[in-house]
Protein backbone atom coordinates (compact mmCIF):
# COMPACT_ATOMS: atom_id res chain seq x y z
CA UNK A 1 0.00 0.00 0.00
CA UNK A 2 1.32 3.34 -1.04
CA UNK A 3 1.54 5.89 1.74
CA UNK A 4 0.13 9.18 0.56
CA UNK A 5 0.23 12.09 2.93
CA UNK A 6 -2.97 14.00 3.02
CA UNK A 7 -3.06 17.26 4.89
CA UNK A 8 -5.63 15.86 7.32
CA UNK A 9 -3.43 12.84 8.15
CA UNK A 10 -0.65 15.29 9.06
CA UNK A 11 -2.94 17.33 11.29
CA UNK A 12 -3.67 20.18 8.91
CA UNK A 13 -6.98 21.49 7.70
CA UNK A 14 -7.19 23.49 4.52
CA UNK A 15 -9.40 26.58 4.65
CA UNK A 16 -12.13 26.28 2.03
CA UNK A 17 -11.98 29.92 1.07
CA UNK A 18 -8.39 31.11 1.19
CA UNK A 19 -6.41 27.85 1.13
CA UNK A 20 -4.49 28.51 4.35
CA UNK A 21 -3.40 25.37 6.22
CA UNK A 22 -4.44 25.39 9.87
CA UNK A 23 -2.77 23.08 12.39
CA UNK A 24 -5.92 21.71 13.94
CA UNK A 25 -8.14 18.67 13.83
CA UNK A 26 -11.42 20.22 14.88
CA UNK A 27 -13.66 22.88 13.52
CA UNK A 28 -12.24 26.38 14.00
CA UNK A 29 -11.96 29.84 12.49
CA UNK A 30 -9.40 30.50 9.76
CA UNK A 31 -6.83 33.03 11.05
CA UNK A 32 -6.41 34.56 7.59
CA UNK A 33 -9.93 34.95 6.26
CA UNK A 34 -12.05 34.35 9.41
CA UNK A 35 -14.27 31.77 7.77
CA UNK A 36 -15.42 28.66 9.59
CA UNK A 37 -13.18 25.70 8.74
CA UNK A 38 -13.83 22.00 9.13
CA UNK A 39 -11.73 19.06 7.98
CA UNK A 40 -14.35 17.57 5.66
CA UNK A 41 -17.80 18.73 4.87
CA UNK A 42 -19.39 15.44 6.01
CA UNK A 43 -22.56 17.06 7.24
CA UNK A 44 -23.00 18.46 3.76
CA UNK A 45 -23.66 14.97 2.39
CA UNK A 46 -27.17 15.22 3.85
CA UNK A 47 -27.59 18.63 2.29
CA UNK A 48 -26.36 17.38 -1.10
CA UNK A 49 -28.68 14.38 -0.93
CA UNK A 50 -31.66 16.58 -0.05
CA UNK A 51 -30.88 18.97 -2.89
CA UNK A 52 -30.53 16.10 -5.37
CA UNK A 53 -33.82 14.49 -4.34
CA UNK A 54 -35.64 17.83 -4.71
CA UNK A 55 -34.04 18.32 -8.12
CA UNK A 56 -35.17 14.86 -9.25
CA UNK A 57 -38.72 15.74 -8.19
CA UNK A 58 -38.64 19.09 -10.00
CA UNK A 59 -37.06 17.61 -13.14
CA UNK A 60 -40.33 15.81 -13.92
CA UNK A 61 -42.64 18.88 -14.06
CA UNK A 62 -39.86 20.79 -15.82
CA UNK A 63 -40.10 18.34 -18.72
CA UNK A 64 -43.85 17.65 -18.70
CA UNK A 65 -45.34 21.15 -18.49
CA UNK A 66 -44.99 23.75 -21.26
CA UNK A 67 -41.99 25.99 -20.80
CA UNK A 68 -43.39 28.70 -23.05
CA UNK A 69 -46.51 29.59 -24.99
CA UNK A 70 -46.08 31.26 -28.38
CA UNK A 71 -49.02 33.21 -29.83
CA UNK A 72 -48.86 34.14 -33.49
CA UNK A 73 -51.87 35.89 -35.13
CA UNK A 74 -54.19 34.69 -32.41
CA UNK A 75 -53.07 31.06 -32.50
CA UNK A 76 -51.39 29.87 -29.34
CA UNK A 77 -48.92 26.97 -29.29
CA UNK A 78 -47.44 25.61 -26.08
CA UNK A 79 -43.98 24.12 -26.15
CA UNK A 80 -42.32 21.84 -23.69
CA UNK A 81 -38.51 21.73 -23.62
CA UNK A 82 -38.49 18.74 -25.98
CA UNK A 83 -41.15 20.39 -28.15
CA UNK A 84 -38.99 23.49 -28.57
CA UNK A 85 -36.15 21.28 -29.79
CA UNK A 86 -38.48 19.55 -32.29
CA UNK A 87 -39.50 22.98 -33.65
CA UNK A 88 -35.84 23.85 -34.14
CA UNK A 89 -35.23 20.57 -35.99
CA UNK A 90 -38.25 21.18 -38.24
CA UNK A 91 -36.84 24.59 -39.10
CA UNK A 92 -33.57 22.90 -40.18
CA UNK A 93 -31.50 24.41 -37.39
CA UNK A 94 -29.96 21.17 -36.21
CA UNK A 95 -26.78 22.60 -34.60
CA UNK A 96 -28.81 24.95 -32.40
CA UNK A 97 -31.23 22.10 -31.65
CA UNK A 98 -28.32 19.95 -30.49
CA UNK A 99 -27.01 22.83 -28.37
CA UNK A 100 -30.39 23.26 -26.64
CA UNK A 101 -30.77 19.48 -26.27
CA UNK A 102 -27.40 19.21 -24.57
CA UNK A 103 -27.83 22.30 -22.37
CA UNK A 104 -31.39 21.75 -21.20
CA UNK A 105 -32.03 18.00 -21.25
CA UNK A 106 -28.77 16.06 -21.21
CA UNK A 107 -26.75 18.29 -18.86
CA UNK A 108 -29.34 18.43 -16.02
CA UNK A 109 -29.97 14.68 -16.30
CA UNK A 110 -26.25 13.91 -16.38
CA UNK A 111 -25.70 16.16 -13.38
CA UNK A 112 -28.45 14.49 -11.37
CA UNK A 113 -27.18 10.99 -12.13
CA UNK A 114 -23.54 12.00 -11.70
CA UNK A 115 -23.99 13.55 -8.26
CA UNK A 116 -26.11 10.57 -7.20
CA UNK A 117 -23.24 8.29 -8.24
CA UNK A 118 -20.73 10.42 -6.30
CA UNK A 119 -22.92 10.33 -3.20
CA UNK A 120 -23.33 6.54 -3.42
CA UNK A 121 -19.60 6.14 -3.94
CA UNK A 122 -18.81 8.17 -0.81
CA UNK A 123 -21.55 6.60 1.31
CA UNK A 124 -20.73 2.97 0.48
CA UNK A 125 -16.95 3.58 0.31
CA UNK A 126 -16.71 2.02 -3.12
CA UNK A 127 -13.27 1.36 -4.51
CA UNK A 128 -13.47 3.23 -7.79
CA UNK A 129 -11.27 4.81 -10.39
CA UNK A 130 -10.73 8.03 -8.45
CA UNK A 131 -9.32 9.97 -11.36
CA UNK A 132 -12.42 9.23 -13.38
CA UNK A 133 -14.71 10.25 -10.53
CA UNK A 134 -12.74 13.44 -9.86
CA UNK A 135 -12.95 14.33 -13.53
CA UNK A 136 -16.69 13.66 -13.43
CA UNK A 137 -17.07 15.97 -10.43
CA UNK A 138 -15.15 18.70 -12.23
CA UNK A 139 -17.26 18.41 -15.37
CA UNK A 140 -20.46 18.53 -13.28
CA UNK A 141 -19.27 21.59 -11.38
CA UNK A 142 -18.19 23.37 -14.57
CA UNK A 143 -21.14 22.59 -16.77
CA UNK A 144 -23.93 23.44 -14.31
CA UNK A 145 -24.35 27.11 -15.13
CA UNK A 146 -24.72 26.47 -18.87
CA UNK A 147 -28.16 24.95 -18.28
CA UNK A 148 -29.42 28.47 -17.63
CA UNK A 149 -29.30 28.90 -21.42
CA UNK A 150 -32.96 27.96 -21.85
CA UNK A 151 -34.10 30.31 -19.08
CA UNK A 152 -32.16 33.23 -20.57
CA UNK A 153 -33.46 32.44 -24.06
CA UNK A 154 -37.04 32.49 -22.76
CA UNK A 155 -36.50 35.74 -20.87
CA UNK A 156 -35.14 37.37 -24.05
CA UNK A 157 -38.06 36.09 -26.15
CA UNK A 158 -40.62 37.14 -23.53
CA UNK A 159 -39.12 40.63 -23.40
CA UNK A 160 -38.86 41.07 -27.16
CA UNK A 161 -41.99 39.42 -28.55
CA UNK A 162 -44.70 41.20 -26.63
CA UNK A 163 -47.15 42.55 -29.20
CA UNK A 164 -50.56 41.50 -27.91
CA UNK A 165 -52.60 39.27 -30.22
CA UNK A 166 -50.23 39.62 -33.17
CA UNK A 167 -47.27 37.90 -31.62
CA UNK A 168 -46.66 37.12 -28.01
CA UNK A 169 -44.44 34.80 -25.99
CA UNK A 170 -45.14 34.03 -22.37
CA UNK A 171 -43.22 31.74 -20.04
CA UNK A 172 -44.93 28.58 -18.84
CA UNK A 173 -44.97 26.85 -15.44
CA UNK A 174 -42.08 24.57 -16.43
CA UNK A 175 -39.75 27.57 -16.53
CA UNK A 176 -39.89 27.96 -12.74
CA UNK A 177 -39.38 24.23 -12.20
CA UNK A 178 -36.48 24.11 -14.64
CA UNK A 179 -34.80 27.17 -13.10
CA UNK A 180 -35.17 25.53 -9.70
CA UNK A 181 -33.54 22.34 -11.01
CA UNK A 182 -30.58 24.32 -12.34
CA UNK A 183 -30.12 26.31 -9.13
CA UNK A 184 -30.53 23.30 -6.82
CA UNK A 185 -28.09 21.13 -8.78
CA UNK A 186 -25.56 23.98 -8.77
CA UNK A 187 -25.87 24.20 -4.99
CA UNK A 188 -25.63 20.40 -4.74
CA UNK A 189 -22.41 20.32 -6.78
CA UNK A 190 -21.01 23.15 -4.65
CA UNK A 191 -21.87 21.51 -1.34
CA UNK A 192 -20.27 18.18 -2.27
CA UNK A 193 -16.72 17.79 -0.97
CA UNK A 194 -14.58 16.01 -3.63
CA UNK A 195 -11.94 15.09 -1.04
CA UNK A 196 -14.36 12.51 0.34
CA UNK A 197 -13.93 10.50 -2.87
CA UNK A 198 -10.22 10.20 -2.17
CA UNK A 199 -10.46 9.52 1.55
CA UNK A 200 -11.61 5.91 1.50
CA UNK A 201 -9.44 4.68 -1.35
CA UNK A 202 -6.92 2.07 -0.29
CA UNK A 203 -4.54 2.46 -3.21
Amino acid sequence: MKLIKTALAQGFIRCHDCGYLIKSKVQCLCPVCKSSVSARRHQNLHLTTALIISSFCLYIPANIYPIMAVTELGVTARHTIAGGIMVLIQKDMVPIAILVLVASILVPLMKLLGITLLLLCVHYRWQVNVHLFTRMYRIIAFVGRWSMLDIFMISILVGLVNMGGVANVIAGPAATAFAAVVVLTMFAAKSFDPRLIWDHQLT
Partner: protein
Amino acid sequence: MAKTALLFLWPCAFSLVPVYAFEACPECDLLLNPAEPEHGDKAHCPRCGYLLQRPHKHSIERTLALSLAGLILIVPANLLPMIAVKLLGNSQDGNLWSGVLALFNEEMWAVAVLVMLSSVLLPLVNMGLAFVISLHLFIKKPSNYLIFWMRWYQHLNEWAMIEVYALGIIVAWVKLADDADIRFGFGLYAFVGLLIVNAMLANELDCYTFWQRISQLSKK
Protein backbone atom coordinates in the same frame (compact mmCIF):
# COMPACT_ATOMS: atom_id res chain seq x y z
CA MET B 1 12.12 57.84 1.34
CA ALA B 2 9.18 55.91 2.64
CA LYS B 3 8.79 54.27 -0.71
CA THR B 4 12.39 52.97 -0.84
CA ALA B 5 12.01 51.64 2.69
CA LEU B 6 8.91 49.84 1.61
CA LEU B 7 10.68 48.34 -1.39
CA PHE B 8 13.50 47.18 0.90
CA LEU B 9 11.10 45.62 3.33
CA TRP B 10 9.09 43.81 0.69
CA PRO B 11 11.34 40.73 0.22
CA CYS B 12 11.98 40.58 4.00
CA ALA B 13 8.30 40.62 4.74
CA PHE B 14 7.89 37.85 2.21
CA SER B 15 10.39 35.53 3.89
CA LEU B 16 9.59 36.39 7.51
CA VAL B 17 5.92 35.67 7.35
CA PRO B 18 5.50 31.89 7.02
CA VAL B 19 1.92 32.18 5.93
CA TYR B 20 1.80 29.52 3.25
CA ALA B 21 4.58 27.17 4.37
CA PHE B 22 2.62 24.19 3.07
CA GLU B 23 -0.42 23.93 0.95
CA ALA B 24 -3.00 21.23 0.28
CA CYS B 25 -4.87 20.36 -2.85
CA PRO B 26 -8.48 21.51 -2.42
CA GLU B 27 -9.85 18.50 -4.31
CA CYS B 28 -7.81 15.56 -2.99
CA ASP B 29 -6.19 17.05 0.15
CA LEU B 30 -2.66 16.03 -0.81
CA LEU B 31 -0.10 17.86 1.33
CA LEU B 32 2.25 19.82 -0.91
CA ASN B 33 5.18 22.15 -0.83
CA PRO B 34 3.98 25.35 -2.43
CA ALA B 35 4.81 25.37 -6.11
CA GLU B 36 6.37 28.56 -7.33
CA PRO B 37 5.63 28.53 -11.03
CA GLU B 38 7.00 31.18 -13.37
CA HIS B 39 4.66 33.88 -14.55
CA GLY B 40 2.46 32.38 -17.24
CA ASP B 41 3.02 28.79 -16.09
CA LYS B 42 0.50 26.66 -14.28
CA ALA B 43 0.86 24.50 -11.18
CA HIS B 44 -1.22 21.32 -11.08
CA CYS B 45 -1.72 18.88 -8.24
CA PRO B 46 0.49 15.83 -8.94
CA ARG B 47 -2.14 13.40 -7.71
CA CYS B 48 -5.45 14.61 -9.12
CA GLY B 49 -4.35 17.24 -11.61
CA TYR B 50 -6.27 20.14 -10.04
CA LEU B 51 -5.13 23.57 -11.24
CA LEU B 52 -3.53 24.98 -8.08
CA GLN B 53 -2.27 28.32 -9.27
CA ARG B 54 -1.74 30.23 -12.45
CA PRO B 55 0.25 33.36 -11.69
CA HIS B 56 0.35 36.13 -14.26
CA LYS B 57 2.69 39.02 -14.70
CA HIS B 58 1.09 42.23 -13.39
CA SER B 59 -1.95 40.26 -12.28
CA ILE B 60 -3.18 43.01 -9.94
CA GLU B 61 -2.66 45.91 -12.34
CA ARG B 62 -4.39 44.03 -15.14
CA THR B 63 -7.28 43.03 -12.89
CA LEU B 64 -7.66 46.67 -11.86
CA ALA B 65 -7.69 47.88 -15.46
CA LEU B 66 -10.04 45.15 -16.68
CA SER B 67 -12.51 45.55 -13.83
CA LEU B 68 -12.60 49.32 -14.40
CA ALA B 69 -13.27 48.70 -18.11
CA GLY B 70 -15.98 46.21 -17.14
CA LEU B 71 -17.64 48.67 -14.76
CA ILE B 72 -17.74 51.28 -17.53
CA LEU B 73 -19.10 48.82 -20.12
CA ILE B 74 -21.82 47.54 -17.79
CA VAL B 75 -23.61 50.91 -17.96
CA PRO B 76 -24.31 50.99 -21.74
CA ALA B 77 -24.84 47.21 -21.79
CA ASN B 78 -27.68 47.67 -19.31
CA LEU B 79 -29.22 50.90 -20.50
CA LEU B 80 -28.99 50.91 -24.30
CA PRO B 81 -31.26 48.74 -26.44
CA MET B 82 -29.61 45.47 -27.45
CA ILE B 83 -31.93 43.94 -29.99
CA ALA B 84 -34.74 45.49 -32.00
CA VAL B 85 -37.38 43.21 -33.49
CA LYS B 86 -39.76 44.05 -36.32
CA LEU B 87 -42.57 41.54 -36.64
CA LEU B 88 -45.60 41.95 -38.92
CA GLY B 89 -45.38 45.72 -38.78
CA ASN B 90 -44.92 45.98 -35.02
CA SER B 91 -41.51 46.80 -33.73
CA GLN B 92 -40.02 46.50 -30.29
CA ASP B 93 -36.60 46.79 -28.78
CA GLY B 94 -35.25 45.16 -25.69
CA ASN B 95 -32.30 45.29 -23.36
CA LEU B 96 -31.18 43.19 -20.40
CA TRP B 97 -34.02 44.55 -18.28
CA SER B 98 -36.96 44.07 -20.65
CA GLY B 99 -37.01 40.29 -20.20
CA VAL B 100 -36.86 40.66 -16.42
CA LEU B 101 -39.71 43.19 -16.40
CA ALA B 102 -41.85 41.06 -18.72
CA LEU B 103 -41.37 38.04 -16.46
CA PHE B 104 -42.31 40.16 -13.43
CA ASN B 105 -45.49 41.30 -15.21
CA GLU B 106 -46.37 37.66 -15.81
CA GLU B 107 -45.91 37.03 -12.10
CA MET B 108 -43.07 34.60 -12.78
CA TRP B 109 -41.18 36.40 -10.06
CA ALA B 110 -38.83 33.52 -9.14
CA VAL B 111 -37.50 33.23 -12.69
CA ALA B 112 -37.40 37.03 -13.00
CA VAL B 113 -35.31 37.39 -9.84
CA LEU B 114 -32.96 34.61 -10.98
CA VAL B 115 -32.46 36.19 -14.40
CA MET B 116 -31.96 39.62 -12.87
CA LEU B 117 -29.39 38.31 -10.41
CA SER B 118 -27.37 36.24 -12.85
CA SER B 119 -27.38 38.60 -15.82
CA VAL B 120 -27.40 42.07 -14.27
CA LEU B 121 -26.80 42.29 -10.55
CA LEU B 122 -24.12 39.69 -9.87
CA PRO B 123 -21.89 40.62 -12.84
CA LEU B 124 -22.03 44.19 -11.51
CA VAL B 125 -21.26 43.10 -7.93
CA ASN B 126 -18.43 40.85 -9.11
CA MET B 127 -16.83 43.56 -11.23
CA GLY B 128 -17.14 45.97 -8.32
CA LEU B 129 -15.55 43.48 -5.91
CA ALA B 130 -12.69 42.74 -8.32
CA PHE B 131 -12.20 46.50 -8.67
CA VAL B 132 -12.06 47.33 -4.94
CA ILE B 133 -9.86 44.29 -4.16
CA SER B 134 -7.32 45.03 -6.88
CA LEU B 135 -7.40 48.76 -6.09
CA HIS B 136 -6.54 48.10 -2.43
CA LEU B 137 -3.77 45.67 -3.40
CA PHE B 138 -2.46 48.11 -6.02
CA ILE B 139 -2.13 51.08 -3.65
CA LYS B 140 -1.12 48.66 -0.83
CA LYS B 141 -3.78 49.94 1.53
CA PRO B 142 -4.85 47.33 4.09
CA SER B 143 -8.54 47.06 4.81
CA ASN B 144 -10.50 44.90 7.18
CA TYR B 145 -13.01 44.24 4.44
CA LEU B 146 -10.47 42.80 1.97
CA ILE B 147 -10.87 39.20 3.14
CA PHE B 148 -14.63 39.62 3.23
CA TRP B 149 -14.72 40.97 -0.32
CA MET B 150 -12.40 38.24 -1.62
CA ARG B 151 -14.51 35.49 -0.06
CA TRP B 152 -17.68 36.89 -1.57
CA TYR B 153 -15.96 37.29 -4.94
CA GLN B 154 -15.06 33.58 -4.92
CA HIS B 155 -18.53 32.47 -3.89
CA LEU B 156 -20.45 34.70 -6.29
CA ASN B 157 -18.20 34.12 -9.28
CA GLU B 158 -20.06 31.18 -10.73
CA TRP B 159 -23.45 32.91 -10.41
CA ALA B 160 -22.58 35.73 -12.78
CA MET B 161 -23.53 34.20 -16.10
CA ILE B 162 -22.81 36.75 -18.82
CA GLU B 163 -21.41 34.16 -21.21
CA VAL B 164 -24.44 31.90 -20.82
CA TYR B 165 -26.68 34.91 -21.48
CA ALA B 166 -24.72 35.60 -24.68
CA LEU B 167 -25.43 32.05 -25.85
CA GLY B 168 -29.08 32.64 -24.95
CA ILE B 169 -29.11 35.71 -27.21
CA ILE B 170 -27.74 33.61 -30.09
CA VAL B 171 -30.40 30.91 -29.63
CA ALA B 172 -33.20 33.50 -29.34
CA TRP B 173 -31.89 35.24 -32.47
CA VAL B 174 -31.89 31.98 -34.44
CA LYS B 175 -35.43 31.23 -33.27
CA LEU B 176 -36.70 34.64 -34.34
CA ALA B 177 -34.64 35.04 -37.51
CA ASP B 178 -37.17 33.23 -39.71
CA ASP B 179 -40.22 35.32 -38.89
CA ALA B 180 -38.90 38.66 -37.83
CA ASP B 181 -36.55 41.41 -38.89
CA ILE B 182 -33.86 41.79 -36.25
CA ARG B 183 -31.45 44.67 -35.71
CA PHE B 184 -28.69 44.79 -33.15
CA GLY B 185 -28.36 47.93 -31.07
CA PHE B 186 -25.35 49.55 -29.47
CA GLY B 187 -26.15 47.85 -26.18
CA LEU B 188 -25.26 44.49 -27.71
CA TYR B 189 -21.81 45.75 -28.74
CA ALA B 190 -21.25 46.98 -25.20
CA PHE B 191 -22.46 43.58 -23.96
CA VAL B 192 -20.00 41.72 -26.21
CA GLY B 193 -17.24 44.02 -24.93
CA LEU B 194 -18.30 43.22 -21.38
CA LEU B 195 -18.21 39.51 -22.24
CA ILE B 196 -14.62 39.74 -23.49
CA VAL B 197 -13.50 41.85 -20.51
CA ASN B 198 -15.19 39.41 -18.12
CA ALA B 199 -13.43 36.39 -19.68
CA MET B 200 -10.06 38.16 -19.55
CA LEU B 201 -10.68 39.15 -15.92
CA ALA B 202 -11.51 35.57 -14.93
CA ASN B 203 -8.27 34.47 -16.59
CA GLU B 204 -6.19 37.18 -14.94
CA LEU B 205 -7.44 37.00 -11.36
CA ASP B 206 -5.53 34.14 -9.76
CA CYS B 207 -7.10 33.52 -6.35
CA TYR B 208 -3.90 32.03 -4.91
CA THR B 209 -1.83 35.13 -5.73
CA PHE B 210 -4.56 37.40 -4.45
CA TRP B 211 -4.90 35.59 -1.12
CA GLN B 212 -1.14 35.70 -0.63
CA ARG B 213 -1.03 39.41 -1.29
CA ILE B 214 -3.99 39.99 1.00
CA SER B 215 -2.43 38.07 3.89
CA GLN B 216 0.91 39.87 3.39
CA LEU B 217 -0.90 43.18 3.42
CA SER B 218 -2.81 42.45 6.60
CA LYS B 219 0.28 41.09 8.42
CA LYS B 220 2.25 44.32 7.98
